[in-house]
């Protein structure tokens, strides 16, 4: 995508968001997530970096074959982000520490109040009662507002399908599993049970109970319990979350309430500006890295016509 087109898309997105907003009727700050919402608790102290979750996701979602096999540990040499071809990736941290490396699975966190959803002017996104943030790729126009809005930098852009450019991400296996009450494929395969599936409310209790029972094992925080208004995916960690690549600067308020505080359309457009600038910044960074293949995204950027 050319930078100019991108700018244009963002501007259109910005203004249209403002128009679409009122229809969605979010009650400001009152939404605690659906009571029966499911979730996944990731215990990074259990993960051994086998990447079985990546393989399971690839097969379940019928994604293209990976560049290199799922038992190739060399991928850990670089931090990866989820892409349109890999909805989840595992990264390695703390490699030099005597306590050994810590692995962190990354995927869509399925926010209680998803910024992607509120930023989407064609209403492609839905938060289901089971907790999944799903999307309708048929209506997606590829504006990439959601990619900019996402506090976790998750949605991936599919550059390959030129006719129908769409954003893709983890849907908690909604269509094939969650809808029927079954755990996502990544959870089911995990040999270490680093991933625990259950009702989000129960998982929060389990997480705090694990910390209470074995305080030496964990830092006293459940990431995702409060961040950006709460997420369906929750994390436990043996060291500070900032050391594992988590954004620990996020506020506990959902991203949308920043937007909702403004009343009219003009401030709404203004509120999209910071996001717009960060988008440009990201693009610029990609250009700097061009050709070195530091992350899959920039590879894709390079290979497109």
């Amino acid at each position, binding site marked *: 995508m050319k930078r100019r087109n991108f700018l244009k898309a963002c501007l259109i997105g910005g203004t249209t968001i403002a128009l679409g907003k009122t229809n969605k009727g979010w009650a400001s700050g009152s939404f605690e997530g659906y009571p029966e919402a499911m979730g996944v608790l990731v215990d990074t102290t*259990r993960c*051994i970096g*086998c990447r*079985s979750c990546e*393989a*399971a996701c*690839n*097969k379940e979602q019928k994604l293209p*074959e*990976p*560049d*290199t*096999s*799922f*038992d*190739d*540990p*060399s*991928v850990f*040499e*670089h931090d990866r982000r989820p892409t349109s071809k890999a909805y989840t990736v595992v990264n390695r941290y703390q490699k030099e520490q005597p306590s050994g490396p810590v692995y962190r699975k990354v995927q869509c966190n399925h926010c209680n109040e998803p910024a992607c959803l509120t930023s989407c002017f064609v209403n492609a996104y839905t938060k289901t009662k089971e907790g999944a943030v799903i999307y309708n790729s048929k209506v997606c126009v590829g504006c990439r507002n959601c990619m900019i809005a996402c506090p976790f930098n998750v949605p991936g852009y599919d550059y390959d399908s030129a006719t129908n450019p769409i954003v893709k991400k983890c849907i908690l296996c909604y269509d094939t599993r969650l809808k*029927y*009450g*079954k*755990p996502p494929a990544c*959870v*089911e395969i*995990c*040999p*270490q*049970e680093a991933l*625990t*599936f*259950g*009702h989000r409310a*129960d998982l929060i*209790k*389990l997480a705090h*109970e*694990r910390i209470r*029972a*074995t305080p030496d094992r964990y830092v006293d925080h459940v990431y995702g319990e409060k961040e950006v208004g709460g997420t369906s995916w929750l994390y436990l960690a043996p060291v500070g979350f900032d050391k594992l690549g988590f954004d620990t600067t996020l506020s506990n308020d959902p991203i949308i309430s920043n937007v909702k505080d403004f009343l009219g359309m003009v401030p709404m457009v203004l509120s999209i500006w910071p996001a717009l600038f960060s988008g440009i910044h990201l693009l610029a960074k990609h250009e700097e890295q061009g050709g070195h*293949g530091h992350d899959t995204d920039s590879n894709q950027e390079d290979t497109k016509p």
Partner: protein
Amino acid sequence: MSSYKHLIVAALSIGAISVSSPAALQCAPVPDSITLNQNGKLFSPFTFNHAKHIQSIKECADCHHHTTGTLVLDPNCARCHQNSSPTAVVSCKGCHSATPFSPETLAAKRADKQRYHLDKMGLKGAMHQNCIGCHNKMGNGPTGCQDCHPRTTEGAAFYSTNRKGAKPAHAEEE
């Protein structure tokens, strides 16, 4: 916490349980070798040498908790199970569910308000954490994914092993 009280009462009424001599067990006979991962799809079944492990580890409780009647070692569990008596069920699969996240298991857990252990792992998780955990800690025993159970053809496809080395960059392995 009434079930906890029951447990304590039960433990007290039995009095001193045989804590040191596993030979005194009257329950299931102790097998020498056991075939694990019998229903494996991605990985093959394999033989677990129970006798050799007992010989080199000595502590039944390293794997069986207090269920075989030996003194529990994990300080976290000893908080409550210092005096717990052996259980009728000893095999891991008797307690750790093969389908820990099925709608049925989750519903049963939610309904069982009395239960203390709401965070009991599934069978696959319990096995790998127990086995790989100790092998890592002792720096002895297999830890690689194919060291205990070789992959099946289905497993090879699952892990896309034909893509090995497809990307020349960072080709070096451990």
